C-alpha cells in the first residue's frame, strides 16, 4: 500500500492501455489466432473422424494434383519470407522496401489462388464436386475455407500497402504490419498441415 501512495497524484491516469506490456493490437491478434486454431482444429478433427470411419478413402496422390500442391506450398512459404522482409523494412523505416516486399507478398498470394483455381477447375471438368464423395467434401471444404483466409490476407495486406502512402510514420503502423504478419504466417501454417493431410497421406 505504501508504494502506491508514494506515486504522485499528478501522474496521468488515462493511459491507452498496455497494463500487460503488450499492445492491444498484438494481444488482440493472438487471441484471434487462438480462435482460428480452434476453427481449423475442428476441421482437422472432422477429417480424422470421417477418414477413420470411412469404408474406403482414396490416396491423395491418386486424385489430387501433387506437383501443383507442392508448387503452392513453396509459393506460400516464400510469401511468408517476403512478409517478414516487409516487416523488417517497415522496422527500418524504409518505405520503398516495405512497399516492394508487401507487393511481392500480395502477388504470391494471388499466384496461390490462381493455382488453386486451376486445380478446382480441373476437378470440375472431371465431374468431381464436393457432393461426389466424402473425400471430395473434405477436400473442397477445407481448402475452400483456407482459400477464404488467403483472400482475407490479401485484403489486409493490400490495405496496409495502400495506407503506407500516408500512414507509414504513424506510431501504430509497425504494430499493424506485425499483426498482419502473424495472421499471414498462420494462414501459411494451416496450409503446411493441409497439404500433407490431403495430398500425401
Amino acid at each position, binding site marked *: *500500500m505504501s508504494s*502506491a*501512495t508514494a*506515486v504522485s*497524484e499528478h*501522474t*496521468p*491516469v*488515462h*493511459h*491507452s*492501455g*498496455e*497494463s*500487460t506490456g*503488450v499492445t*492491444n493490437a498484438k*494481444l*488482440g491478434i493472438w*487471441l*484471434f489466432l*487462438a*480462435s*482460428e486454431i*480452434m*476453427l*481449423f*482444429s*475442428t*476441421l482437422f478433427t*472432422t477429417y480424422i*473422424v*470421417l477418414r477413420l*470411419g*470411412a*469404408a474406403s478413402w482414396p490416396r491423395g496422390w491418386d486424385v489430387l494434383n501433387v506437383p501443383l500442391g507442392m508448387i503452392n506450398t513453396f509459393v506460400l512459404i516464400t510469401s511468408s519470407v517476403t512478409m517478414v522482409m516487409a516487416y523488417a523494412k517497415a522496422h527500418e523505416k524504409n518505405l520503398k522496401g516495405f512497399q516492394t516486399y508487401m507487393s511481392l507478398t500480395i502477388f504470391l498470394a494471388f499466384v496461390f489462388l490462381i493455382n488453386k483455381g486451376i486445380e478446382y477447375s480441373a476437378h470440375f471438368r472431371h465431374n468431381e*464436386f*464436393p*457432393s*461426389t*464423395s*466424402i473425400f*471430395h*467434401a473434405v477436400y*473442397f*471444404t477445407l481448402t475452400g*475455407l483456407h482459400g477464404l483466409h488467403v483472400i482475407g490476407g490479401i485484403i489486409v495486406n493490400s490495405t496496409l500497402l495502400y495506407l503506407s502512402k500516408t500512414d507509414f510514420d504513424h506510431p501504430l503502423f509497425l504494430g499493424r504490419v506485425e499483426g498482419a504478419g502473424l495472421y499471414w504466417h498462420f494462414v501459411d501454417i494451416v496450409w503446411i498441415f493441409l497439404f500433407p493431410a490431403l495430398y500425401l497421406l
Partner: protein
Amino acid sequence: MAHEHQDSQAHKSFYSYFFSTDHKVIGLLYIVTALMFLLCGFMLMLVMRWQLAFPGSPIPLLGRILSPSLAPNGVMTPDFYNALGAMHGTIMVFLGIVPLGVGGFGNYVLPLQIGAEDMAFPRLNLASYWFFLLGGLLMLSSFILPGGAAQSGWTSYPPLAIINPGQTVWLFAMVMLITSSLLGAINFLVTSFNLRAQGMKLSRLPIFVWAQIVTAFLLLLAFPPLEAASVLQLMDRIAHTSFYLPQGLVILGMRHIASGGGQPLLWQHLFWFLAHPEVYVLLLPAMGIVSEIIANNTRKPIHGYNVIVGSMIAIGILAFVVWAHHMFISGMSAVLSDFFLVTTMIISVPSVAILTSFVFSLRGGSIRFTTPMLFALAFLPMFGIGGLTGLPLGLTVTDIYLHDTYYIIGHFHYIVVPGSLLALMGGVYYWFPKWFGRKMDDTLGKWHFWTSLICMNGVFFPMFIQGLAGQDRRYYDPMAALHSVPTQPLHVVSSAFAGLLFLSQIPFIYNFFHSISHGEKVGDNPWQATTLDWACPSPPPHGNFTKPIRVYHGPYEYSLAGQKTDWAPQNEEVLA
C-alpha cells in the same frame, strides 16, 4: 457536470445512437435489443404452451391471424410447433441471455469497473453489435421467408436438420451471431487485461470482471468449433455433401441421393463442444452480477473472493471436457460415458463452492433488502434447484431414463430462467441509476420480483413431475403417448403460470421506460458501493471518469473498522 451531460445526450440523433462507438451506448443498445428478443422468444413459447395445455384446440385470437399453412382453423400444425420450439430455444440462448449478460452488462459495466475510458477496440465493438442485430433479425425473419423457420430444435441434429426446410437461414444467422460473439470476446479480453487503471491488479478485479473474462475465454475457444460445424452443415444443405449423412440413408422409404459416408454423431459432438461451455456463458455473468449485489447489500466483503474466482476459472477449464454428457444415449462406448460422468460430477464442485461462498457472504451481514438484492437472493435457491436436479442427468444410469423428458426441460430452465435471468434482471435494477442517473421504482420492482419468482416456479416445477412420469419433450401432442396422459393436465398449470409470468413483466417494462425520464433522481453512488463503476458520474460522460483514477485496495472493502463510512471506494486510500 452530470446535468450538462444529460442535456447533450438529449440532443443525440438516431445516427449517433446506433453508430456510436461508446461502450455505454453499445451496452445499452445490447441490453434493450436483448430484452426485446427475450420478450419475443417468450411469446413464441406462450403460443407453444397453448398446444401443450389444450392439444388440438384452436389458439385464441392468434389462431385467426395466422396463415392457414401454419394453423388451419386456428390449430397449429406439428411443423409450426417444431418451428416455434426451435426458434424459442435459439432466440432465448443466442439472442437473449448471452447478449444481455455479455454484450449488455459486460459492455457497459466492465470498462467502468476496471477504470478504462472505453473498450480496447471501440469500432470492433460496434461491429459486434451490428453482427448481433442483423443475425438476430435474419433469424426472426425466417418465419416469413419461403421454407419457414428452422424446425430441428436449437440443437439442429442431422440428418433431420439437413432434410428439414428453413435450416439454411438458421445456419447463416448462426454464423453471424458467432462472428459477433468472437469479436466481442477478443475485445473483452484485451480490455480487461490491458486497460486496467493504475493499481488495478488482477487480484483487485471485481468478481463481475472475472466472470466476464472466463466467459470471454469460453466464447473465444468454444464458438469456432460450432462455426466450423455450421459451415459443414451448410455445405451439406447447399453443396449436397454428406458430412453428417451416413451411407444408404433412407428417408420416408426413399433412398437419399447424397453420397453418404458422413457421421450424424459428429455434429452432436461438435455442437455440444460449444453448447456445454455455452451453459456457463449463460451462467457466469449472472454469478458476477450476484456477487456485486450481495457484497453491496450485505455491507461486508464477499466471502471467499479467491475461492469464487478460482472456481470460475476451474469451471472455465472443466467446461471443455464434459460435453458428451448430453449424448449418453446417442451411442457412445461405456468407457467414454464413464469419463464424461466423472468430469460432470467434478464440475459441480466449483459451482457448489461458488454458491456456498455466496451463502456464507450473507452470514453476519446487515442485509439491505433492496430490489436488486431480492433478485440476487432468489438466485441462490433457484440456482441450487437447477444445479441439484442436474446431478441425476449427469449420472448415466438415471440419465437413460430421464433423457429427453420434461425433467431436463425443468432442469435447464431452472438454471437459466429463475437462475440467470433473475440475476440479470437484478442487474438491471442495480445499474439503472448508473445508466440514467435515476432509480427504478421500488414498489413496482418488488411486485415484478415476487410475481416473477412465483410464476417461474409455477411454470417449471410441474415439469419435474411430468419428466419423472416419463413424459417426452419435443412431442407436438402430449396425448399421443399413453404414459404422458396422466401428467398432461400439469401442462395447464405451467401454461397458466406462463401467461401470468407474461403479465408480471408489464410492471417491469413500464418501470424501465417510465423511470428513464421520471424516476427518482439519485447521485453518482446511490448504493454506496466500492467498485469503480460508482466512482464516475451517473450517467458517465464520454471517456467515463472526470477525475484521475488510482486503485488502492480490493473491490469489496465494506464495514472496515475505524472509517467514517461503511464503504471504502477502490479509488480512495484507506487510512489506518
